[in-house]
């Protein structure tokens, strides 16, 4: 059963071949056994999951089943779950049990889905390797066959590894600069970062508020569509969520791609791009041509400024967002503080890891008197230019395609000592967050036995089109079905 997609499991449950309780037991057994190697979960909520599965079976018996009723899945440990520890991968929140659900959590609960636990992540979503988690690194299931310990990408590396290893068919994730797409690419799964404002941020622990967006991760595009159906929509508790109708994202999956205009941004096929990765991506694009799409080269002239602008804006926002972790009300507090300043400084020195501290320092610096104009304001201007690049490009084409990452999964420890090299993992993904547009990563081949991701970028609120393009590709390829050994 653990090989099946969300859509397939829904059909099994609907047919009555298996109950949700049985299905949950099977998944929990597999998960507990397999995750010893991967460390993709921070918390496994066995009792809660079985209780939810029981309720799901009752819901179905009462004739009130949704496509999610009784289907197992997992939440990234950045989404608050009422009564269940929500750590954000940090020592700071290791003991934090929220008394409320995130809107995303609440939506899955209402749909009757069964959450098996909370997945591992880079601390406060800051990282591209899931190595900075207080709860230990997650290992990419690809490479284990060759005895190699490779990173799953990050920050949603736990969700990506768990989906790739068939521990769950789907998992929620978040993306601030690439944290859904990069791990999806490195683990060979399908992930979608929606338009900023499409999915509520309420109860999703903030890293950089103007960039953070909750999204989906599963093996198929269809399952991503099923997830987005549950997650998308206006939320009065999030002032930045957008009040626009939510389509049924599964309804348009089968539309033909004939006439689809694909743009290839020149700047995303350059620089340190691994040649073998490029070849896999270009070969995927040829598949699209076979499906009736046309391809042309386009330009995003300010693409080379994206990393610099991102690493000013995101840390600046983070420096304020993380001020609430001060030891006063919840979370970690240092032992025996001798006064207020001592409580603040030791709580934060002991509770945050190195990368989080680095970004708080960078952000604080960028906002300081005398530097604000040169850094923060300048970065915001660059952000406008980047946004305009995409607006201009979408006058000519329907979607943009590129590699998701410049190279496949790297080895654990390989980039840990060099933050800037690590930041360059996001070179093809951050601009999308700065612009606020949606993008996916779709499995598109392998290099040395490691998955390669194709990034599909769309205009604002074009999630249905992206899912349609990914689904059609998955009808003629099987990269997304490959299983790590």
């Amino acid at each position, binding site marked *: 059963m653990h090989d099946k997609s969300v859509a397939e499991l829904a059909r099994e449950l609907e047919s009555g071949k298996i109950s949700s309780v049985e299905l949950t037991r099977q998944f929990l057994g597999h998960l507990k056994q397999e995750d010893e190697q991967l460390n993709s979960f921070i918390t496994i909520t066995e009792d809660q999951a079985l209780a939810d599965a029981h309720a799901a079976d009752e819901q179905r018996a009462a004739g009130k089943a949704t496509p999610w009723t009784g289907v197992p899945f997992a939440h990234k440990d950045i989404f608050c779950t009422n009564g269940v520890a929500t750590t954000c991968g940090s020592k700071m929140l290791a003991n934090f049990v*929220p008394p*409320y659900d995130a809107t995303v959590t609440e939506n899955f609960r209402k749909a009757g889905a069964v959450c098996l636990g909370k997945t591992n992540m880079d601390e406060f979503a800051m990282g591209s390797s899931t190595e900075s988690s207080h709860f230990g690194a997650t290992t990419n299931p690809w490479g284990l066959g060759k005895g190699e310990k490779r990173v799953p990408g990050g920050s949603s590396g736990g969700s990506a590894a768990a989906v790739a290893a068939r521990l769950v068919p789907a998992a929620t994730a978040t993306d601030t600069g690439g944290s859904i797409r990069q791990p999806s690419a490195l683990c060979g799964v399908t992930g979608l970062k929606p338009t900023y404002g499409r999915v509520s941020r309420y*109860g999703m622990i903030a890293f950089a*508020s103007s960039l953070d967006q909750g999204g989906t991760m599963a093996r198929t595009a269809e399952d991503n569509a099923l997830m987005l159906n549950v997650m998308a929509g206006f939320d009065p508790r999030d002032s*930045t969520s957008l009040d626009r109708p939510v389509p049924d994202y599964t309804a348009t999956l089968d539309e033909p791609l004939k006439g689809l205009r694909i743009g290839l941004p020149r700047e995303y096929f350059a620089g340190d791009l691994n040649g073998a990765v490029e070849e896999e991506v270009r070969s995927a694009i040829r598949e699209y041509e076979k499906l009736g799409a046309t391809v042309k080269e386009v330009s995003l002239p300010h693409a080379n400024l994206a990393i610099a602008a991102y690493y000013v804006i995101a840390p600046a*926002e983070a*420096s304020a967002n993380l001020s609430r972790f001060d030891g006063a009300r*919840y979370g970690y507090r240092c032992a025996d503080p001798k006064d207020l300043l001592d409580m603040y400084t030791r709580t934060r020195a002991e509770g945050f890891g190195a990368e989080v501290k680095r970004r708080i320092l960078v952000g604080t610096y960028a*906002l300081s008197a005398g530097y604000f104009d040169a850094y923060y304001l300048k970065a915001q201007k660059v952000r406008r230019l980047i946004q305009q690049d995409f607006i201009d490009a979408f006058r000519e084409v329907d979607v943009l395609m590129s590699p998701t990452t410049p190279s496949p999964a790297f080895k654990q420890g390989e980039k840990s000592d060099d933050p800037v090299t690590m930041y360059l993992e996001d070179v093809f993904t951050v601009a999308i967050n700065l612009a606020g547009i949606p993008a996916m990563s779709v499995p598109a081949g392998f290099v040395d036995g490691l998955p390669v991701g194709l990034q599909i970028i769309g205009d604002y609120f074009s999630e249905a089109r992206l899912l349609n393009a990914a689904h059609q590709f998955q009808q003629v390829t099987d990269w997304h079905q490959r299983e790590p050994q």
Partner: protein
Amino acid sequence: MQWDIVIGLEIHVQLATRTKIFSGSSTAYGAEPNTQANAVDLAMPGTLPVPNEQAFRYAVMFGLAVNAEIERRSVFERKNYFYPDLPKGYQTTQLERPIVGPGYVDIDLASGDTKRVRIHHAHLEEDAGKSLHEDFHGMTGIDLNRAGTPLIEVVTEPDMANADEAVACARKLHGIVTSLGICDGDMSQGSMRFDVNISLKPKGSETLGTRTETKNLNSFRFMEQAIAHEVERQMDILEEGGTIVQETRLYNGDRDESRSMRTKEEANDYRYFPCPDLLPVEIDDAFIDEARNSLPELPDARKTRFKEQYGLNDYDAGLLASDSKLAAFFEATAERGKDAKLASNWVQGEFSARLNAEEKSVADSPISGAQLGDLVVRIADNTISSAGAKKVFEALWSGENDNVDAIIDAKGLKQVSDTGELEKMVDEVLASMPDQVAQYQQESDPKKQKKMLGGFMGPLMKASKGQGNPKLFNEILVKKLGG
């Protein structure tokens, strides 16, 4: 050396919304600590602010009341600093683009002139919680009930030249916000908090001196004292050739002293930047028109009306109109009492004096405007003398009885005004005092005669057991003695 005093005000006005500016928690004062603080107010991870429309409406009403421009697109920013009563580690406020732009108020001066004080801007922000340093045995308690209460911070230009003008401006703004109903105006509970910026410069100089900011002024009286105190402090330093340090000072009203809280060098770098959790606030014409149409009568308009409707002079009308509660009390008194001038005298005299003596506000008054009006009626129709009226007021205030006529009866304060009865008493008294009558009639100086009348009043009041109408006795005496 002669000095010019330069004063500007910063006023925090707590808006009387039912819920907080970014959460659904109640803003009611005086609840058990932390019972009005939800996950948003506690800055729990993942929670987000949702703006309260009523706070924007109140801010716009204030802007319109001080003749200000309303900014169509205002922006919330984060002001970053660590303090335990600031749960997010930043205050959400406005800096570059406040909701209320430049405006002005006109204040009445003792000289009878009016002076215009310019408003630099007013912005919306959230209040912090409270740190409680008592009752925790060397520790500090945090109460977050107040955290997130909406405030507007009003900043004036440095247009005031002495304490009287500053207090007049403060009272004017107090009258405006209470008349608008956007703030309860209670300074002792911190609903309205005034900070005073003061600097001195050589008389006639164009260059402003270094200013200080004085905080913690929870009454108009303390504000006046604090300004006098700070002006004197600065003058002493300057005259001895010293320089003023730019700093924030904390005033202690009970001891009439101030101390430095922090200097400019010690001030935080607040690292303001636009709050990414909140979109810019867009305000359209319809919203402004709706706010304009909902504006109640403001002190200036009320003053004009009091002059016309009640025939009050400029001074009395201005004083009674300045505070909406006092104005409403006066109108209730005048309506029942039918004699506006007498009502005005009693509201400003006995009534206000009593409130001040007991440090009460109009809202705490044990008597109503209608009751005072009943008293005015009995004074105007000569039922009681002014001495009797004070006794009735006393009985009303103490709660001895709440009915004016019942008090008059019970205390036997009713004046005898029956002229026949009074004439009889006069005749009897005059008959018993022939020498004094003769003396009076031989006197040719009317002034001395007038003085001699007093000699008959004592026995007359005694004869009437204190209830004879003194005015009528006087008239009858003059008639009888002169005849």
